[in-house]
Structures are given as structure tokens and as C-alpha cells.
């Protein structure tokens, strides 16, 4: 059946800013959907507020609206589109995550769709309602005879007891209608049950608790299912969670396909999934269905289903090669599965179930180091910010590869510098005089823009420690009690403690009892541990290991070693290096090869070059009586010059979708210029890992060893024109020097020049040379020296450790007391580093008060420093809303700047250009300035793609990463711009605001204050013709809907007190009722502004502020911090505001901007008064 004739224009809803639980997987699905719809001749109207997405590139839709994702804005867009010749016929809400789905549903409920005669496609509103509503879903499942967890509700303790008698213990108790799982708990004893019920009844606003059968410890599975309108249902992929029920899927290590189900059990699950699709009524799209299986009885229960593409379907797409989002989009407009070809084989249809002949492991990436107050225990609420996926022929191989992909300084499952067992062993051996190698640093890993660390091959300080709490494992052996606790409580370090448990002789059964992890997975890990013991215990080293063949026909140990997924680094760590060290083994190892991901386990030839690396035993070919050894490598050679783009690895705070956006553009531009582009990345959520983004895709860890293998393979046959490292963020940058040393042709700004900007002394020289100003600064190695320097510079000062990512342990110190407190933090943060020459140091900068921070992105084509033929073009100048001292990633910013004078702007542009020339930038560059009065200070220079490139690209209508790629590939900047019709100083099309979103509500109790340490996970963009409405839209897009009136709290620190007066006055003028704490109250009273005093502590005669927040009395909080942390009262206010979703502003600059937005809304008559405009219309200069 062909495309439906009644659908010509489809509105696609994206998922908005990246938040925990909703990351760039929806850029992948949205981009695929837009492409698929347009391929079939549909006109696409897109709504998404996230500028860092590929899907919001104007060429992916006919009309690209970067506007807040709310029903109001849908209404506005539908109205505007209806005025044009082709009104929207249908909305596709299933590719934009929960945000897209919820927004579409709200629009349906409010009658907006009916009003415009627009229907939902992909999933009907009744199907969505049935799937999303707990009780409707449960009822539906029972209707079709499927098992669901037993449950009941109770409004009293008596009722609760009755429900419990039916369900039994243990059970799970949730308070009805509470925020974020508050009041939820498991109980195993009657006493615990009683108190949990009591607590739950009290917590619930309606005095009701939900009692549910506990599935804690059950095995967890997911099926990715697709159904078309002919009722053809297929399962794309099965996924098994290594962590059993109790840990959110997003926080679980997961494996595809399912490993511990017999066919009978799997088919039962498949039958259920099909029945669910039919009952719920998803009739043309994809869904995800989750099951729990009791480990000893095999009872299967249905947990939930999502009637849309999801994080898991992104994983399933990358794991199998089956483009779920693309197919789902085509089904939504009327195609059936047998009419859609399988892109991979091109000869068979999409109506089959992919089979894979490898094992896929996904591991979540957390960033708890950013939230030291947060509870690290994993539970029902997702806490990870990203994930990596690895493909191997076996679980063991994929498991090691995924650990290496995590950017946590681990080379695999142990045998690296973070391995406490290896450390203890080395020490023990040293003590008895046996020469053993000490572990080398795992691999060069991340550090961020704030870092000034020289790039030393293989010894770069990384970011997150592997297990924030591994300090509890000091000493060897680890105490049984510590191990037991570590195994019982799911946390990010648990796999490593499982290893330690095996090292200490614990059995698989014992570990299973504590973790609930299936024995099969545990034994896989145990097998690695045992093999490693065998390897390490060979006292005579690897050469003996090499010749050993004690296991009869077994593969030689070296081969087994590689096939178990170990990397060379681990072997070097594990075995002594003698005369003919293991390096030789590595080079003579002939088992490495690349295999194809083909959806069909080699049954058919695959057309798409999507590869993973593995190690395989060679096969023998007997020809003319001679025996040839061949390892079957499937990489297809091409004589076309190759350009390799290194991606960014797993998302984490400080490195997210923005870099993937740049990588995708680099690949597209290189392909456009006629090169065969090769993408290497390990992040399954991204557009870059779609097999059609580049000509060749390697789904691989981004480590020196893994990347060099690919480079050598390509180089052995074809030609490599260049390797691009400057777009993927810190991950590839850290590899640059090592790759170059091994002969890889890095193109663009050379690593030496990148380092030049990172080397503090060299950089200071350059600035002096160029006559540019830098905040006065010094380097201290201890507290005393720090005090001396700070006193010389004068407070406030900014301190930071020398080798960290994303502003780790950076602090602004207003006085010596602060300094005393934070210097030890900063010094401790460098503890883990191998001491640089001269020892650890902290950097102390004079903190420029009241400075405005400016971000500049530029592209240049200097082929060497001071190249006279080079040019530099300013892409955009962004003015930060929040003052200097707030991490640039956490600050809102405006393009064009809203308060800078033309003279300052000109000066900033001039400085950027001379810096680019002096450093020899070829490609992108980002410079940060602080402007105080007439003075411009250079804060830092990063000669690479920055987080703001996509935002600037959207704001100016120029795809700067593509421009940079063209330049890096040898074209002149002048020609490149000319070809694109871009002037030498392109002007922004409108006022653009970038506003960050924070994950604070996922970490209850954490102080939500901004600082030099980056903690935002994503950003939204607001566009309009003026600052006020643009800022207001950006705020709405981040989910922080500014109130137009109501109760506002004003409580600011002493330095801010003078400046708060006009803000308070304006708030009052706009009709807000003001509350304040006593100090602020006095200042405001003196200025003639009346406020109601609130108390900071309970029990005082005035209203207790925390209560006022908790009871929802406050509508807006303006609170600049005196103290940081949840231990302080103010920290608790802020945490409470976040928990209640009350707008919280922690800087005066932020308050001023918010005020302007509120004022604009007042003038325009509220939220409804905003206009909408597509990027294409801005570009065309339409009013």
C-alpha cells in the first residue's frame, strides 16, 4: 500500500534541550524521520528548541521552527502554516521523546489539533493515552491475559494491610501524586511496611498510596517492536539488562540480543509484545515493550510500553543496523513493511527481524563528580547523562570495549592504572624484588576547555574517577563488609567491585545473591578474571605466554587474550616488559579484523560499510597443497582519498550533542568535496553513528590503540587525506598528538598550535607579544604561596586546579577564608595526576568584578603561525547574560551582544583575528573575553570547535563547521565563503538567546547554584527580533516559565545588595508581591521598597522561607549565594525551588534579563503574544 494521499505536510516535533533521560537519541530519530518523510515527497514542518541538533539544520525540513515545544507554539505554527498555501495535515509526535509526545497530547486535549483539522500519525491519541496511563495500561494488559505486577491502592493503614496480604512482601510503596519518586520505597518486613505506608500517606497530596508487588532482582528485558497498518508486527531487537529490576534501564548496563532466554521464553515475550501492540493500538510505528522475568520461576510480567521511538530504539538501531526511526516515519504516512527496502542489504525488504552475529553492550555514563552532594546509588530514577555502546563477537570482548569507550581512564575490565588489585600486586612483587611493570596510565582521556595541561602522549589527566567512591577500597584485600555493601547497592563502580570479589575468591553464586545479576553475565566476568590471573601469574612473561599451548587445540594465549577484548595497554600492564616486550606480540598479532554490521548475520551481502573491530582465529586455505592462514577482514578497500572524523564518545556534561553536530557537518562537507569520509565514534545516540552520515562508519572506542588500528587498516590499502580531531570535543583532541606521533596526518590547526594556546607560559608570551591583556595571575603549589599570590592580586580571585575538565573544583574566592577552604579542594583535585614537572599547581587569576564575559567563534585558514595569506572571519560574538565566574556552558548568552559598544565589539574582533594569525589557526577557534568597562581581557583561546558552534550557525544561517572543514581540506576561506554566498563579516539574522538546562531536579537536595563548574546538560534557543522576547522564549523553551505576577523572593549577598534595588523596584512595578530576607529587606527598605520579611529558620515569628517554597507560595526566587552547598539554609531553599519547579535565578545579571523578558511579556500581553518564524523566513529576510 503506497503513501497515504491525504498527508502532504507533516509537522515533526523534536525533544528540545538535552536533559537526563532524553539525550541526542532524539536528534538521531528526528533527523531520520525528517529525511524519510521528505524522501517520500512530504513537506516537513519542524518544531524543536534545541539548536545543537542536526534535525534543526534548515535543509532537513521545509520549515524549521526553533521555538519552545509547547501546545501554544504548536498552535501558533499551525496558524501561520495554514495561512500559507499548504497547511499542516498531520503531526508526527513519536520521534521527539516524551517531550514531543506529551506536548502533542496536550495539544490534542486542548483541541488545538481539531481546530486546525490536523491529525496525529505514528500513534493515535487513544493509543498514547492507553500506554501512558498506568491504570488504563494495566487494565489493557489484563484484557489480553497478560501478567502484570500485582498492585492496589490504599487510603488508610487498614486498607494498605489488606492490599499487602494479597500481594505479599516484599513490595513497593509509592505515594500517589508526588514529585520524582518522593515517598517511594521497597519494604521487606511488616514493620518496614507499616512505616512506609504511614510515610507515604503523609507525603501524598491526596492521602493515597500505591502498593505494588516488588520486582526487585527480577531479570529485565526490552523488545523493540514495529507494527504497520496491515498488522504486520516485527521485533527489531531484544535487549537484556545486566542490572536486574530496580535500576532504571537508562542506568543499566544492557546487552543485545537477550542472552539468557530459551527460544520458548523469548517467543512467549514476542507473542506478548505483538498482543500489546494490537491492544494498545499502535498501528503504524515503533514501540518499546519492557518485561520482567522471575529468575527462578520464569514468570513473565509486562512492565510498560512506550508508543514511540526511544533511547532503546536508538540503541537497537545502532546495534542491528535497522533504521527504526526512518521505517517508523514511513509507516506513519501509510507504507507497509514489505514495501520498504532494507537499506543494508538493499535486496530484501524491511519486513524481517534482524539477526546479529555479535554481541552489543551499552554502558551508561554518569557525572556524579559534578554533583558531590548527590546520592550515587542507582534506582528507579535515571541519573546518567550519556552512554557508549560497543560491538564485539563475544560479550567479553564487547564488555571490555565498552569500558574503554567510557572516557573514565579505564583500559577495560581491569589491568589498568585504576586497578587496585594490580596495584597491590605490583607492590607485593616489588617488596620481594620481582621486577614487574607498574601500570601505565590507561589511555589519554578527556580534559576540557578549562585545562591547560600540556598534551603528553598517553599521560593526560582524565575526568571522572572510575568510581567516585572507590576510596572505600583502599588496601588489599578489600574488606568483606565493604565488598558486600558495594555489591548490594547498584552504583557506577559496581562492575569493578564484582571483579574484585572474584579476585578475592568469591563464587559466582555469592556475587549473584548480592547483586541479583544473572549468573551467566557474572561468569563471563569471572572468566575474564581467571584468564587474567593465568596471564599475570606466568612469571616468565609474555614470551612464554606466547609459546604456551598447554590447552591442546586451544588458541594460543595471545590470540585468546585479544579475543577476550583486552587491549595492548592491559597486557603491558599485566606482564613484565623484558627484552622482547609485548609490543612485538601486538605487531605480529594477526587476528585483528573488521567485521560488518549487516542486520542478517552474513546471510546476505551488505551494501553499507558499517564496521566493528574484533579478533578472530584465522582460517586455513589449502591451495595447490600449500596452507595459507587468512583472517577474514571485511573492510572494503577504496582508492578514493579518505578523510577520517573522530567523534566525541559518550555524552557527558561539558561534551555533548554540540560536538556531534560538528562531526556530522565535517563528514558531510568532506563527502561533498569528494572524499570518502570515515566516522569513528562509540555513542549510539548520535546522528554521527548513523551509517549514512558518512561513507564508512566504525563503531569503536576512541582510544589511541583502537583508532590507530583503523587508520593503519585504511592506510594499508587506500590513502588518508587527513584525520580531523578538532570537532569531537576533548576526546579526539587528547588523541591528536599520539596519533600524529604514530604518523597519522592530522589536518587543520596542528596539535602543536592547539597546545600553544593551552600552555600557560607560552600563551602569556603570545599575549604580551600582541599587546593583549589577561587578568593578572599566578601559580601556587601550596596554600601559603596561594595566599601570597592572592594578596598580591587582590580579592576576589578565581582558583582552579591545573588538570581538570569542565571547571572541576574551580572556585571564586572573595576572601582569604574562602581561599583557605577551597585551595585544599583544588590541590586534592590534582591528587590523582602524575605530577607534572615542578609538582602540582593551582592557578590563581585575579577575578574581574562585574565583568561581562564574551564568547567568540571564528574560522581561519592560516596554514602556519603568522601566515600572511591567511584570513580570519568572525562567526559570531556572544555576550553572556551571567557575569564572568559562571562557567560559559552554564551561562545564557545573546547573539548579537545586547550591551556592548561598537568600539568594544570592534576591539574584540580585532583581538580574535590577531590571535588566530599568531597561533596559526586553520579551522575553528573559540576565544573567551571578559569586558570590564573599556578593558578587554583575554580569558582563554581554544583553537577548535566549541560548544557554541551549532548555536552560532543557527543564529547566522552559516554552517561554520562545514566552512571550517573545507578550509582544513585545503580550500581558502575566501573561496569557501564566496561559494556559499557569505560575506566577510556575516551579520546575525535575528536576536538569538542560548539558555542552559540543568539536571538539578534529578539529584534531589543538591544546591542548584551556578558557578565556575559546568553542570548543565543541554541548551535551548530563543529567537526573535528583540532581546526581551527572545530571552523569554529561551526561558520557556528550557521549561522555566517565568511568572508574569505573583510572589517573588529577593535575597542577595552583600556585594549584590546595591544592584538589587532597581530590580526589586521593577518587579514591584510589574505587580509582584515582594518577600525578602532581613539583610536584603533593610537595603530595599532604605530605598523605599516595601517587602515582607521571611525567616531563614523555622520557629521564627515571620514565615519560614523553606515552608513558603515547599507549600508553593513563591512564584519566583532571586537568590544570589553567600554560601554554597546543601548544608546551608540557602542551599536548601534553592534545592526546594528546583524540586517544586519554581523559577530560580542565582545571579543579578540573570535577574535583569529575566525582568526584561517579563516586561516584554507584560507589554505583549502574556505568553500567548509571541510570534513564531521559521529559520527559512529569517534567512529570506521576511518580516
Amino acid at each position, binding site marked *: 500500500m503506497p503513501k497515504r494521499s491525504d498527508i502532504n505536510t507533516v509537522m515533526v516535533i523534536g525533544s528540545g534541550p538535552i536533559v537526563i533521560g532524553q539525550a541526542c537519541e532524539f536528534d538521531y530519530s528526528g533527523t531520520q524521520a525528517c529525511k524519510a518523510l521528505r524522501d517520500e515527497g512530504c513537506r516537513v514542518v519542524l518544531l524543536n528548541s534545541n539548536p545543537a541538533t542536526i534535525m534543526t539544520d534548515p535543509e532537513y525540513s521545509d520549515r524549521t521552527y526553533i521555538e519552545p515545544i509547547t501546545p501554544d507554539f504548536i498552535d501558533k505554527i499551525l496558524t501561520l502554516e495554514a495561512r500559507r498555501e499548504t497547511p499542516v495535515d498531520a503531526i508526527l509526535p513519536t520521534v521527539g521523546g516524551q517531550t514531543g509526545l506529551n506536548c502533542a497530547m496536550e495539544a490534542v486535549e486542548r483541541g488545538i489539533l481539531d481546530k486546525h483539522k490536523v491529525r496525529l500519525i505514528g500513534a493515535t491519541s487513544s493509543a498514547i493515552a492507553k500506554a501512558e496511563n498506568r491504570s488504563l495500561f494495566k487494565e489493557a494488559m489484563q484484557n489480553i491475559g497478560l501478567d502484570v505486577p500485582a498492585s492496589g491502592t490504599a487510603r488508610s493503614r487498614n486498607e494498605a494491610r489488606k492490599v499487602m496480604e494479597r500481594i505479599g512482601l516484599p513490595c513497593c510503596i509509592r505515594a500517589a501524586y508526588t514529585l520524582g519518586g518522593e515517598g517511594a520505597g521497597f519494604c521487606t518486613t511488616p514493620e518496614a511496611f507499616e512505616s512506609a505506608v504511614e510515610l507515604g500517606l503523609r507525603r501524598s497530596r491526596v492521602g493515597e498510596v500505591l502498593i505494588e508487588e516488588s520486582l526487585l532482582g527480577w531479570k529485565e528485558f526490552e523488545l523493540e517492536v514495529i507494527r504497520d497498518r*496491515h498488522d*504486520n508486527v*516485527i521485533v527489531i531487537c*531484544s535487549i537484556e539488562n545486566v542490572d536486574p529490576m530496580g535500576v532504571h534501564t537508562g542506568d543499566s548496563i544492557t546487552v543485545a*540480543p537477550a542472552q*539468557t*532466554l*530459551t*527460544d*520458548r521464553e*523469548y*517467543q512467549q515475550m*514476542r507473542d506478548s509484545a505483538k498482543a500489546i501492540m494490537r491492544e494498545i493500538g499502535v498501528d503504524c510505528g515503533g514501540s518499546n515493550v519492557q518485561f520482567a522475568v*522471575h*529468575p*527462578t*520461576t*520464569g514468570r513473565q510480567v509486562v512492565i510498560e510500553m512506550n508508543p514511540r521511538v526511544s533511547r532503546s530504539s536508538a540503541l537497537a538501531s545502532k546495534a542491528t543496523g535497522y533504521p527504526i526511526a526512518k521505517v517508523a516515519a514511513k509507516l506513519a504516512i501509510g507504507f507497509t*513493511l*514489505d514495501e520498504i527496502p532494507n537499506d543494508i542489504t538493499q535486496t*530484501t*525488504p524491511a*519486513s*524481517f*527481524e*534482524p*539477526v*546479529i*552475529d*555479535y*554481541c552489543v553492550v551499552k554502558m551508561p555514563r554518569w557525572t556524579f563528580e559534578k554533583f558531590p552532594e548527590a546520592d550515587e546509588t542507582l534506582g528507579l530514577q535515571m541519573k546518567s547523562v550519556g552512554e557508549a555502546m560497543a560491538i564485539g*563477537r*563475544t560479550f567479553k570482548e564487547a564488555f571490555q570495549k565498552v569500558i574503554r569507550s567510557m572516557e573514565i581512564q579505564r583500559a577495560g575490565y581491569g589491568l589498568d592504572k585504576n586497578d587496585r588489585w594490580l596495584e597491590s600486586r605490583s607492590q607485593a612483587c616489588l617488596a620481594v624484588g620481582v621486577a614487574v611493570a607498574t601500570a601505565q596510565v590507561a589511555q589519554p582521556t578527556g580534559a576540557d576547555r578549562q585545562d591547560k595541561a600540556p598534551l603528553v602522549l598517553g599521560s593526560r589527566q582524565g575526568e571522572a574517577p572510575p568510581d567516585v567512591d572507590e576510596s572505600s577500597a583502599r588496601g588489599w584485600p578489600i574488606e568483606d563488609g565493604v565488598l558486600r555493601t558495594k555489591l548490594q547497592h547498584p552504583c557506577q563502580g559496581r562492575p569493578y567491585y564484582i571483579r574484585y570479589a572474584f579476585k578475592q575468591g568469591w563464587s*559466582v553464586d555469592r556475587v549473584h545473591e548480592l547483586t541479583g545479576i*544473572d*549468573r*551467566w553475565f557474572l*561468569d563471563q566476568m569471572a*572468566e575474564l578474571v581467571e584468564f587474567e590471573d593465568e596471564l599475570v601469574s606466568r612469571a616468565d612473561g609474555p614470551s612464554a605466554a606466547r609459546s604456551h599451548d598447554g590447552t*591442546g*587445540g*586451544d*588458541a594460543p594465549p595471545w590470540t585468546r587474550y585479544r*579475543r577476550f577484548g583486552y587491549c595492548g595497554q592491559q597486557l603491558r600492564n599485566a606482564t613484565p616488559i623484558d627484552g622482547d616486550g609485548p609490543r612485538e606480540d601486538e605487531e605480529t598479532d594477526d587476528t585483528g579484523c573488521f*567485521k560488518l554490521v549487516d542486520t*542478517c*548475520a*552474513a*546471510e*546476505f551481502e551488505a551494501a553499507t560499510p558499517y564496521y566493528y573491530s574484533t579478533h*578472530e*582465529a584465522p*582460517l*586455513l*586455505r*589449502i*591451495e595447490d*597443497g600449500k*596452507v595459507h592462514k587468512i583472517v*577474514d577482514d571485511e573492510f572494503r578497500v577504496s582508492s578514493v582519498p579518505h578523510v577520517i572524523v573522530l567523534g566525541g564518545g559518550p555524552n557527558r556534561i561539558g561534551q555533548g550533542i554540540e560536538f556531534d553536530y560538528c562531526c556530522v557537518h565535517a563528514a558531510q562537507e568532506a563527502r561533498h568535496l569528494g572524499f570518502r569520509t570515515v566516522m569513528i565514534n562509540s555513542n549510539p545516540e548520535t546522528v554521527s553513528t548513523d551509517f549514512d552520515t558518512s561513507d564508512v562508519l566504525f563503531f569503536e572506542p576512541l582510544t589511541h590503540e583502537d583508532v590507530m588500528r583503523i587508520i593503519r587498516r585504511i592506510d594499508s590499502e587506500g590513502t588518508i587525506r587527513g584525520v580531523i580531531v578538532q570537532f569531537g570535543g576533548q576526546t579526539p583532541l587528547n588523541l591528536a598528538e599520539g596519533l600524529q606521533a604514530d604518523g597519522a596526518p592530522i589536518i587543520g590547526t596542528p596539535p602543536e598550535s592547539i597546545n600553544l594556546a593551552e600552555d600557560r607560559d607560552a600563551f602569556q608570551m603570545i599575549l604580551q607579544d600582541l599587546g593583549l591583556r589577561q587578568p593578572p595571575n599566578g601559580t601556587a603549589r601550596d596554600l601559603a604561596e596561594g595566599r601570597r599570590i592572592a594578596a598580591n592580586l587582590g580579592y576576589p580571585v578565581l582558583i582552579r586546579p591545573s588538570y581538570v575538565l569542565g571547571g572541576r573544583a574551580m572556585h571564586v574566592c572573595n576572601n582569604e577564608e574562602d581561599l583557605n577552604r577551597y585551595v585544599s579542594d583544588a590541590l586534592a583535585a590534582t591528587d590523582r595526576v602524575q605530577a607534572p614537572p615542578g609538582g602540582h599547581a593551582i592557578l590563581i587569576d585575579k577575578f574581574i568584578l562585574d565583568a561581562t564575559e564574551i564568547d567568540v567563534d571564528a574560522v581561519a585558514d592560516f596554514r602556519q603561525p603568522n601566515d600572511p595569506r591567511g584570513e580570519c572571519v568572525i562567526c559570531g560574538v556572544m555576550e553572556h547574560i551571567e557575569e564572568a565566574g559562571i562557567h560559559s556552558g552554564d551561562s545564557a548568552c545573546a547573539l548579537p551582544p545586547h550591551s556592548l559598544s561598537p568600539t568594544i565589539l570592534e576591539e574584540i574582533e580585532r583581538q580574535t583575528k590577531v590571535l588566530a594569525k599568531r597561533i596559526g589557526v586553520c579551522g575553528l577557534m573559540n576565544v573567551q573575553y571578559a569586558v570590564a568597562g573599556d578593558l578587554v581581557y583575554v580569558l582563554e583561546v581554544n583553537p577548535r570547535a566549541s560548544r557554541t558552534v551549532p548555536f552560532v550557525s543557527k543564529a547566522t544561517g552559516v554552517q561554520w563547521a562545514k566552512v571550517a572543514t573545507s578550509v582544513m581540506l585545503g580550500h581558502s576561506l575566501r573561496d569557501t565563503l564566496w561559494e556559499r554566498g557569505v560575506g566577510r563579516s556575516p551579520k546575525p539574522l535575528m536576536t538569538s538567546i542560548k539558555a542552559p538546562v540543568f539536571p538539578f531536579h534529578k539529584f534531589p537536595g543538591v544546591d542548584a547554584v551556578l558557578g565556575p563548574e559546568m553542570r548543565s546538560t543541554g541548551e535551548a534557543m530563543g529567537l526573535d527580533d528583540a532581546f526581551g522576547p527572545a530571552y523569554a522564549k529561551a526561558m520557556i523553551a528550557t521549561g522555566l516559565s517565568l511568572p508574569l505576577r505573583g510572589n517573588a523572593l529577593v535575597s542577595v549577598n552583600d556585594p549584590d545588595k546595591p544592584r538589587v534595588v532597581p530590580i526589586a523596584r521593577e518587579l514591584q512595578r510589574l505587580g509582584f508581591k515582594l518577600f525578602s530576607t532581613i539583610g536584603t529587606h533593610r537595603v530595599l527598605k532604605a530605598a523605599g521598597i516595601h517587602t515582607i520579611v521571611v525567616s531563614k529558620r523555622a520557629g521564627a515569628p515571620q514565615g519560614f522561607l523553606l515552608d513558603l517554597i515547599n507549600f508553593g507560595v513563591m512564584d519566583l526566587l532571586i537568590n544570589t549565594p553567600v554560601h554554597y552547598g546543601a548544608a546551608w539554609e540557602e542551599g536548601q531553599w534553592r534545592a526546594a525551588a528546583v524540586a517544586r519547579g519554581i523559577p530560580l535565578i542565582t545571579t543579578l545579571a540573570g535577574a535583569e534579563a529575566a525582568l526584561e523578558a517579563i516586561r516584554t511579556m507584560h507589554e505583549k500581553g502574556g505568553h500567548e503574544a509571541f510570534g513564531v518564524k521559521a529559520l527559512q523566513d529569517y534567512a529570506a529576510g521576511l518580516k
Partner: protein
Amino acid sequence: MRCALGLEDGTVFVGRGFGCEGTATGEVVFNTALSGYQEILTDPSYCGQIVTMTAPLIGNCGVNTADSESTGQHLSGFVVRELARLHSNHRASGTLDDFLQAAGIIGLAEIDTRALTKRLRTCGALRGVISTEIDDPVKLIERARAASEMIGQNLADRVMAKEGSNWPAESGAGQFNVVALDCGIKHNILKRLNAAGCSVRVLRGDSPADTILRSEPDGILVGNGPGDPAAVTQTVSTLRELVGRLPIFGICLGHQLLALSLGAKTYKLKFGHHGANHPVLNLDGRRVEITSQNHGFAVDRESLEQVGARATHVSLYDDSLEGFSCDDKRLFAVQYHPEAAPGPHDSDYLFGQFVAMMRRHSPPT
């Protein structure tokens, strides 16, 4: 224990042996099912074959007492990428290794099964030898080349049970009595017939027509089995006598034998269909069924249509014939496995269709 697989095309894979020791020859095929190795190992249709699983991790669930598809052992060899050291499943009663050992099947692990699969895809199914005894690759290849060809082999003879058996319907007395002709029939076919309300009398596939009719069946099911259908001449001639006299349902080899009995031709596929994900288009409803398949031969559609049969199902992979019916003769058959085991249950409706046909023919008393 060292073990090697030699192919007639001159390729040798050396890995680790498990299960039984010794040397065996057979036709090497691959199966792409992700689950269900126990069902595959016990499926008599694999008689005379060395099966490699494309799924790399095998043995994870061990083996249990309920999932076997026959009581005998039929494979010549079983090849996997990695054999699980420990199995984990609540129904498991033993390890795969022990199971193979008891069954006398030679297992080979730790070879590049993907490379092997690609060779079979390119060259077609190949004769091979699996051995824990022969070290010399040249000798292995000689042995592989000396093995007999699949074409012309009547393997059904080897796997049909010596004696018949009875499979009463689940709820005591069945609505219908069915004779199932055993050419290596899978137990799940019988179980699905039972579940559909049939009591089944299993008779050897070479039973003469009058023996079959003596048990007064309401319908006949011709089951699956190994080898070249054209060589199973006895059953074909029996079917020729029975066709049109009572409802007949053919599955896999049964599908081929029925086609032959009608006068159609069969031919050997390049590397066959072996897996649990094959899309089949049901021409009647234009619906797609995801099916379990295991066959090396296929029915020539044109020759079948010439004798008056109607194609009902075709493979969406290669357009080959997957099912036909002769409504006037109350006969239908499918090339794939509606009984699954392993595989999806999409086509289970066919058992109901068979019952409906019997009901029309002879309403239950």
C-alpha cells in the same frame, strides 16, 4: 581438545572441540536463529548436516527436558563461535557440552563462524568433515570431498522412528484423528496438533496408504524431514494415492513431497533457508509472516502451478515458493515451520486452518 572443520572448497577452520570426539562428515549449513539451539540440535531435518550457528554465544541456557524436538540424535556436527562455560536458566537440567557428548555429536567452538557463513553464502552449502582426530588439513579436505552429496540422498529413511506412536489431544479425546507421517517429524508439530484438538497417530513415512487409512484418520499431516525430497519415493507414491481422499497438510519436507506427488518438481537451493526470521508473504491476505525455516530444497513454483496448485505463500527474501494449496483436493502445505520451535508463532493459525478443513470434510461426531 583440538577440533577442525574441513570444507570441500579447501578451507579449514581449527578450534576447540566439545561434545563428542571423533570424525563425521556432512553438508555444512548455517542457521541464523538467535535462540533455540536445543530445538535445532534435536530436529531430525538436520540429519547428515553439520550446523553452524551465526549467533555467536551458544549454550547460555544449557539444555532442558522439555524443548527437544525428537528423541534421536541426527546432526553430524555442531559449530559455534563461543560455547558458554556456565549456563543460566531456570529450566536448565544440564550443559550443552554434556548433551552433545551423550548424543554423540561433535562440537566445534572458537572458530570464525562468520567467515564460515560467508563461505557458505558465496559457495552454497558445502560438504565438510568435522574431526577431533585428523590434524592434517590436506587430509581433512580430502575427506570432505569424499563425502556423499546431499542431492539424491534419502535421509528420511534414517530418521523416521522405527515404530509409530500416539499423541492424544490435550483434553483427552480429540475432536479429530490425524495421522502424522513421520519422515523425521518434530515433536512440536504433534504438540500443536494436540493443542488444536487433534489426537495424533504417528506412522512411519514409508507406511503404505492402506495402513494409513486403516486408522481412519480425519486428516493427514505430512511432516518435516531431512535430505532430498526426490529421493523419498515411497512416501511420494503413498501420497499420490491419498491426495484428494481426505484433508492433507504438509510441512517442509511434507510440502515438497506433496508437490512431487502432484507432479511438480523440486530443486536444491544454493545455501538453503535456515533461520527464524524469514519474511513470507501470505498472498491471500497480503500479510507478512515471520517464519521459522529449515530447508535446503524448494518446490519449483512454475511446475506446481502447471499441475493446478495455487501458490499461497512466497519468500520475501528470494521469491521462492513457501506454500501452496489445492482447494479441490483439500490439501495445503507450507515450506516453513508453523510449529516454530525455534522461531516465531506467526503462522500457528495454519493448524487451525487444518482443523477447519477437517471439520468441513467430516464434522466431529
